[in-house]
């Protein structure tokens, strides 16, 4: 059994390689869109069913988080992005814990035996892409609220601290991406090892633990992105900042 940090390539279309995490993230995206479509079709203002109530409570939780941290107006504006972080990361993490998820093996174009699916967040490309989107949004908001001149001025005040500001911003990307990746990848490895040593009994316990970690990591990523966004926009601190 070989464990690599990089996602394993599964197929090749011309020049480009499709890895197992790409397949997983695509499946998760389609799954979420399908669920959302069903939700949309059944949406009812007056008589929400259990399914609608569950989704509503998740959205309200994130919405409260956004509004409490970034203020009512900005919070609502960034809610779609922030909520997607939460929903996607959580779903991807839990999806990877489903029994049989990593049990499908295929032989790829290089002749290696590789798992067809791999937890989406155990690929740095995935977590880095999201971290870049989050921190990129932060920079865009910084520019739009302060103007380009104001944004650059703040970045270089005082001038000798400019590299430190820049390093700090980049470190946000790295720590956001790295922690999520590290946790999920570590969990994957742990479960893989556990499955090979002690099948069925002990892993169930670890799956539960990983489910909790998966939730916490999704929450951390979401909260941090909101905090960074509210900092960047210099959001007026809502009076109920800690009451959400």
């Amino acid at each position: 059994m070989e464990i690599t940090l990089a996602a394993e390539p599964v197929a090749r279309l011309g020049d480009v390689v499709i890895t197992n995490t790409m397949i997983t993230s695509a499946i998760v995206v389609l799954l979420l869109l399908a669920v959302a479509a069903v939700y949309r079709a059944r949406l009812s203002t007056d008589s929400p069913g259990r399914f609608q109530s569950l989704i509503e409570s998740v959205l309200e939780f994130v919405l409260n988080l956004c509004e409490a941290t970034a203020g009512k107006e900005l919070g609502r504006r960034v809610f779609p992005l922030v909520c997607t972080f939460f929903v996607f990361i959580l779903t991807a993490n839990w999806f990877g814990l489903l029994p049989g998820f990593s049990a499908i093996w295929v032989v790829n174009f290089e002749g290696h035996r590789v798992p067809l699916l791999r937890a989406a967040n155990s690929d740095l490309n995935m977590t880095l892409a999201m971290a870049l989107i989050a921190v990129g949004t932060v920079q865009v908001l910084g520019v739009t609220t302060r103007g380009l001149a104001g944004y650059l001025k703040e970045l270089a005040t005082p001038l000798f601290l400019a590299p430190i500001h820049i390093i700090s911003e980049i470190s946000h990307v790295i720590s956001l991406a790295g922690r999520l990746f590290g946790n999920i990848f570590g969990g994957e490895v742990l479960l893989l090892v556990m499955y090979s040593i002690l099948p069925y009994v002990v892993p169930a316990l670890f799956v539960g633990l990983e489910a909790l970690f998966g939730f916490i990591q999704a929450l951390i990523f979401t909260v941090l992105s909101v905090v960074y966004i509210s900092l960047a926009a210099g959001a007026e601190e809502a009076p109920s900042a800690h009451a959400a």
Partner: protein
Amino acid sequence: MEKLGIDLWGLLWQAVAFGVLVFGLYKLLYRPTLRMLDERAQRIRQGLADADRARRRLEEAEREYVARLEEASREGQRKVSEATQAAQRLRDEILAQARQEAAALIMQARQQIEAEQRQALEEVRAHIAELAVEAARRVVRASLDEEAQRRLVEEFLADEMRQ
């Protein structure tokens, strides 16, 4: 970078997948849900406002009812007192009239009595005069002697006394 598994194509794929998800969920999930939550909040506010308005209207109606009741009661009292006063006035009028009439009657009776008295007196006087004339005539007729005169006067007086 290669060891970590980071490559531009992978980044791009995942970023696009995530972007598609943001867009799709915005259309299918966030926008309808936010709209619905707002609508629901609006409806709750509306319901509260409606209830408040209904409550106020009820209170107003109650106040109006009480006011009307009071007014009716006042009106009734006013009417009763009016009627009482009218009756009082009528009674006074009737009494006054009766007194007047009684007084008039008494006056009339008195006048009549006086008139009758006067008439009676007149008659008596006339009678006395007549008698005096008669007596005088008898005196003249019997003026032959004093004896006869005295007898005559005594006769006359005795006649008068008998009457």
